[in-house]
């Protein structure tokens, strides 16, 4: 039996396999999607009841939108790693593939999940919350895209960390809040600018911050993930 020159399989295929595994499992169980939707619908209903026919100012409405997204995301995104620990399949993944492939596969899955969540949340929020009007669509679209990517990036590494802890449920939002604070402040401000009809250039500072945040979180995550993922 001769040794092959290349033992290693395709890294991209491994990343795709991690993503497809989670995607197909989610299509069968719908656990994360159900948790996210229930949370979003309940929270928007509470906002509707508390506001009544009153119209809140733009900065309050922008803040409330991202509060819904923050807690909605926290209720669903942690599952990606917690479920592997609970079912004992984390070791199977460690045996079959590299930590990098697991991280990027899970990140990709969380990105899709958080984009979907944000689209549904924004549609429901726009329909049912009085006074939420977007005047500069370009700022808002870019804010949602970058905000979603930032949420997914931070949520993925935090989920990997808390999956190893015994108090998973309570630890996640507590750990996530300080890590996500710079992102939250930037997206809330950019959403306020979009609803006030500001010019695109006025939001450039927020976009620079968001892009830097995403780059730093993904770079730091790839550096520490090996240590988080292995014993």
């Amino acid at each position, binding site marked *: 039996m001769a040794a092959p020159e290349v033992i290693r399989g395709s890294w991209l295929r491994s990343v795709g*396999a991690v993503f497809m595994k989670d995607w197909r499992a989610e299509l069968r169980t719908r656990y994360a999607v159900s948790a996210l939707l229930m949370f979003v619908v309940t929270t928007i209903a509470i906002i509707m009841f508390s506001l009544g026919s009153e119209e809140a100012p733009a900065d309050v409405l922008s803040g409330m939108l991202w509060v819904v997204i923050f807690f909605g995301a926290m209720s669903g995104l942690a599952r990606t790693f917690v479920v592997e620990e609970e079912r004992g399949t984390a070791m199977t993944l460690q045996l*079959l593939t590299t930590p990098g492939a697991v991280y990027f596969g899970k990140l990709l899955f969380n990105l899709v999940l958080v984009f979907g969540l944000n689209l549904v949340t924004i549609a429901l929020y726009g329909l049912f919350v009085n006074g939420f009007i977007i005047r500069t669509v370009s700022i808002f679209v870019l804010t949602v895209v970058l905000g979603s990517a930032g949420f997914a990036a931070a949520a993925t590494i935090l989920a990997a960390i808390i999956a190893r802890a015994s108090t998973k449920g309570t630890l996640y939002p507590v750990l996530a809040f300080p890590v996500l604070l710079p992102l939250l402040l930037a997206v809330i401000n950019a959403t306020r600018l979009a609803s006030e009809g500001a010019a695109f250039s006025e939001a450039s500072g927020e976009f620079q911050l968001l892009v830097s945040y995403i780059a730093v979180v993904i770079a730091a995550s790839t550096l520490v993930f090996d240590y988080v993922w292995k014993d």
Partner: protein
Amino acid sequence: MSSPLHIAGAGLCKVFNRRQVFSDVQFQVSQSERLLITGRNGSGKSTLVRILCGLLTPSAGSVVIRWGHEVQEVERPGVIGLVAPYLQMFEEFSAIENLQLAASLRGYPFERGRAEHLLGRVGLDIKRKDAVRSYSSGMKQRVKYAFALLHRPPILVLDEPMANLDADGVAMVREVMEEQHQERILVVATNDLSDCPRADAQVNLDGRT
């Protein structure tokens, strides 16, 4: 000329929260050889198996695998096949889907013909489309064999190889072990010496703390 396939463990020690499981464990095994790991319950057989498979970092010492060249950590998924009670399948998927996942996660193309052949060999061809969660523990053990053999691993590691298997299953495992031994490396960790009556090297973990 030395064999291109070779595993060597040197000075291996594992400590969990100040409790030393074993220390100064050494072994060497080459192509067409069998390594037997024995010891009482709690002596660290599964811990040593996990270290060998790269699933656990030793507190001291190292395991070096050579297959033409020194196998790097990122290459280990392609070199090792593991069957163990603590290795869980993806239970929401069927046996054939689990094999497809195993191939893709390793980064290899999926060979459906080989996967179906292996499922037939382990006696699960009729049940291959049922979710693994509906399987008995013996059937899950059989899936693990197909899972471990799919990529023709040069090193097959079996921890408690006969666990939950009936007489047919035991016969199937003995056949797999014999084939693996022909030109590859077989590592068996067990309490029952009849699981692997002939070994070229042995690590006894009793009294290794």
